[in-house]
């Protein structure tokens, strides 16, 4: 699916720019894309290195297993195919908790490490397991309690009540997350492989 969409984005982008008179922007984009990607990777690198280091301590000391066991009552419902004290569950819990605080860049390393752990118990290495998809939905559903970037931008633009959108954000993000998880649940049940 990503395969098709990737190509379609490029084809539509270039052909539309011919009609739209924006070929110069496209030309420029082709030249700078590589540099932008390197910059983005370099932006991610410090957080990724530091947090992967800290999470490795949590893994080796058994803290991740401890967290996984403590939260197993809810995590087992979402991830029935993952063993109860698997490190992946501890990482998923950390990822969700850090995301909730609106600290996305610190949450990504936990998420990537969780995927790595889920891959270890995946039968078909080139195909997403049901647990991976549930985690992805949980992650992109993006339950954020404190939308830090938005609040700071509102302050910057002189909002009289920068935090007034927190209730609407929380309710909308919860609805989105629950809708995604429900759809995921029904697909899992229909496929029969929990």
């Amino acid at each position: 699916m990503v395969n098709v969409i990737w190509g379609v984005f490029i084809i539509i982008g270039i052909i539309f720019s011919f009609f739209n008179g924006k070929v110069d922007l496209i030309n420029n984009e082709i030249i700078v894309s590589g540099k932008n990607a390197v910059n983005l990777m370099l932006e991610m690198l410090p957080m990724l290195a530091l947090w992967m280091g800290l999470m490795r301590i949590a893994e080796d000391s058994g803290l991740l297993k401890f967290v996984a066991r403590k939260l197993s009552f809810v995590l087992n419902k979402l991830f029935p195919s993952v063993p109860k004290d698997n490190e992946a569950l501890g990482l998923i819990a950390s990822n969700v908790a850090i995301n909730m605080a609106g600290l996305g860049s610190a949450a990504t390393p936990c998420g990537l490490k969780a995927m790595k752990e889920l891959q270890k118990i995946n039968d078909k290495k080139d195909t997403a397991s049901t647990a991976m998809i549930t985690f992805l939905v949980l992650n992109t559903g993006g339950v954020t309690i404190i939308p830090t970037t938005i609040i700071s931008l509102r302050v910057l633009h002189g909002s009289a009540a920068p935090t007034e959108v927190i209730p609407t954000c929380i309710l909308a993000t919860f609805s989105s997350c629950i809708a995604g998880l429900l759809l995921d649940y029904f697909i899992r049940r229909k496929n029969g492989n929990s």
Partner: protein
Amino acid sequence: MATVSIVILPIIVLIIVIYGYKSKINIYDSFLKGVLEGLKTCVSIFPNILAMIFAVNLLIKSGFIDYISSFLNPALSRYNLSTDIISMAFFRPISGNASLAIMDNIFSNFGPDSLMGRLASTIQGSTDTTFYVLALYFGSIGIKKTRYALPVGLFADFVGIVMSFLLVYLFFY
């Protein structure tokens, strides 16, 4: 609320280090191993980052999404909305930076406390860059067949956007 955000990372780091000491492992060695793992992960996700940035930016720069949104203009103006909000909803799943830039624009043109400003804030806060996260997370472990992940992720985003409109009207008007 904001203080929770400030103390959460220090507390997590503290717990990790103390628990590490308690379990009698060599926490320094573990940390170094993890950092190396982080560097390797960073290199292994680079192809996916480049692929996403390239394709998404070509689509954005061509003006295609703005063109599609402009068809909805007559319907939107009846509700005192501008097409920016629709562009933003389209951009949200494919590029966090692009939708953030549109939100910034909306704040400048309409003000953060306007209907448009509140809508933009809620949409930005309730959904995520599904395409990017999917490419990043699956790409990092070499998953090629993503099965039903993308449709479910996009469905969640869609629900988030619809709920944003409903909630903003319900709360503020």
